[in-house]
């Protein structure tokens, strides 16, 4: 059975295609202004890449904040269930998932059968999310793709105490003026993100093995900072950013 999952997030739209439990391919594109169009085009672009036709896809599940815009999906499921399903598909031993996307971060506790036991979401502000890292990379004139690696160069991370992204930017600027090193400030930024997420993680409870998903999982600095704060090792799959779409495709096969 061939199924597809489409995850429309605040910054990126993802698509994944599964055939009898095997990942055929996945794709990431910017969501932009029109969620419906973004969902349609990331899906169609993936099909084209895989040289497949729409007719070969039996069922589609959509997820993410834009899930209800994907009118051609058979069902819309929240990204909480999809991330849980996706991570479990990648590693059925997984018991905790930390998903950090563009505008929110979530922590999930997973049952041995792959169902979600509990979850917490930080959706009140951007401080523990991809958006924060974007703003900070710009403030530090760093490339977002290198940002994580740069943070690992410091052994004395700066202290950034602001819990608000916008105010933290001002704090960073004053740290630069004080002469703190670029690597130390960048490391401090990563610790700040990790501390926001880990306090939420502790509330839900963290049980190993732990997997990190979402776009921010590609940032090695955040992964290491979280490992340090939580005292656990964190698995990151190559499919981390498309994990939601992957989970959606797995669920589609069960419809």
């Amino acid at each position, binding site marked *: 059975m061939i199924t597809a999952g489409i995850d429309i997030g605040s910054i990126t739209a993802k698509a994944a295609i599964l055939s009898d439990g095997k990942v055929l391919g996945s794709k990431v594109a910017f969501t932009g202004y029109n969620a419906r169009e973004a969902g349609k085009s990331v899906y169609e672009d993936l099909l084209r890449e895989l040289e497949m036709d729409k007719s070969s896809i039996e069922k589609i599940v959509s997820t993410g*904040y834009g899930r209800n815009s994907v009118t051609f999906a058979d069902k819309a*499921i*929240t*990204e*909480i*269930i999809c991330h849980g399903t996706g991570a479990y598909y990648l590693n059925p031993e997984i018991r905790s998932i930390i998903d950090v996307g563009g505008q*929110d971060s979530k922590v999930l506790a997973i049952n041995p059968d792959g*169902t*979600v*036991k*509990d*979850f917490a*979401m930080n*959706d*009140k502000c951007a401080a523990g999310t991809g958006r924060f890292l974007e703003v900070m990379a710009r403030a530090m004139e760093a490339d977002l793709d290198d940002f994580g690696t740069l943070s690992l160069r410091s052994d004395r991370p700066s202290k950034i105490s602001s819990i608000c992204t916008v105010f933290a930017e001002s704090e960073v600027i004053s740290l630069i003026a004080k002469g703190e090193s670029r690597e130390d400030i960048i490391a401090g930024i990563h610790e700040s993100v990790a501390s926001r997420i880990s306090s939420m993680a502790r*509330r839900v409870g963290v049980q190993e093995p732990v997997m990190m998903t979402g776009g921010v999982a590609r940032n090695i600095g955040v992964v290491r900072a979280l490992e340090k704060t939580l005292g656990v090792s964190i698995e990151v799959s190559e499919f981390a950013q498309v994990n939601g779409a992957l989970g959606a495709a797995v669920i589609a096969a069960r419809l």
Partner: protein
Amino acid sequence: MTDTDAGKGGRKMQSDKRMKEIMTGYYIDAKTAEQTGKKVAWITSGGPVEPLIAMDIIPVYPENYGAMIGASKMGADLCARAEEMGYSGDLCSYARADIASSLVDGGPIGGLPRPDMLVCCNNICGTVLKWYEIQARHYDVPLFILDTPICHTEYSEEAKKYVRRQILEYIAFLEAVMKKKFDYDQMAEVGKLSVEGQRLWQAVLDTAMNRPSPMTCFDAFFHLALIVTLRGTKVAVDYYRMLLAEMEQRVADGISAIPNEKYRLLWDNLPIWYRMRWLSEKFAAHDACLVADTYTTAWCMSLRYMDEDNFIDSMAEGYTKSYLNIGVDEMTKIVLEMVDKYDVDGFVMHSNRSCKPYSLGQYDIQRAVQKERGIPSVIIESHMVDERSFSESQTETRIDAFMEMISQKKG
């Protein structure tokens, strides 16, 4: 199946019309009190209203008006106005809305009638103390404060004496303001009616134990008004008798509030007053019935302490041990009782920024419910009357994920 209101998240009730009539009449009486020579008292929602009824004083509830302001979606503007006056945005949105409303005659009925006196009982929170002091200065009227010490578990002898003494002071206060003697016989009558009203309200809420339930908590939020505002009157007793009969008839006819009740849920904390319909439709679309809630239960929870044959003595304990004046362990016990009584599959907790006593301790209660009963819960956040604090998309994701979890578990 008759009187369906499909897609509206519940079926319309005949009693709704009567409730609207009574509340309209009540507010008209209050607003025309000056002309009719009656006196008006503003009182907190947990305050002892029975002595006011016995003295033929019209009780008015700024908190009830706050709910109306929220439901009319007038909260954001009034709260912003209060912030312009210098009040913090973190302050209770009932308080902000009321303080601003007093200044601009705001809200759906163009402001509340001037009080002749204020009665403040802090068994619900400490904010009311300052709020009522502000209003006492604004209107230049006498204020009576009933200080109910917090009762973590036990109602000590000292607390008993202290509160009992204040009830006597309260009566003396009313006698001084009204310039007439307190009628203890009338009080005994009012006490009996208050207990009867509370019993009927409990019976109405208990009909939700049926599967399927004839009502949802959204119905309860609406029908709550009378037991809060006119507790101790015959009007309230007659109304709840009628409502109970209607609920019992629904049960007999097999009419359910949610056309396809698959999941039963418990709600915690005050309602999100400006999003009642949205929430009601959202849960109905998931075939979920919010069969009970901790908020409306609070107005019959003190029945266990009240003696209808000796109301004036027993009311002290009843008022002191209100749901928000006890320890978190005690609140947890009550929640677990309700989980069992109404046989619920999940727990929806409103983390209400406006109500610290209700919301502090919610994570502990959540954890206890998960541990002791193994049912999932979800926390949604807002200020109950200030719609600026509500994020629809985020709240929707949490509710949808919660319902998906329950259906994964239950099928």
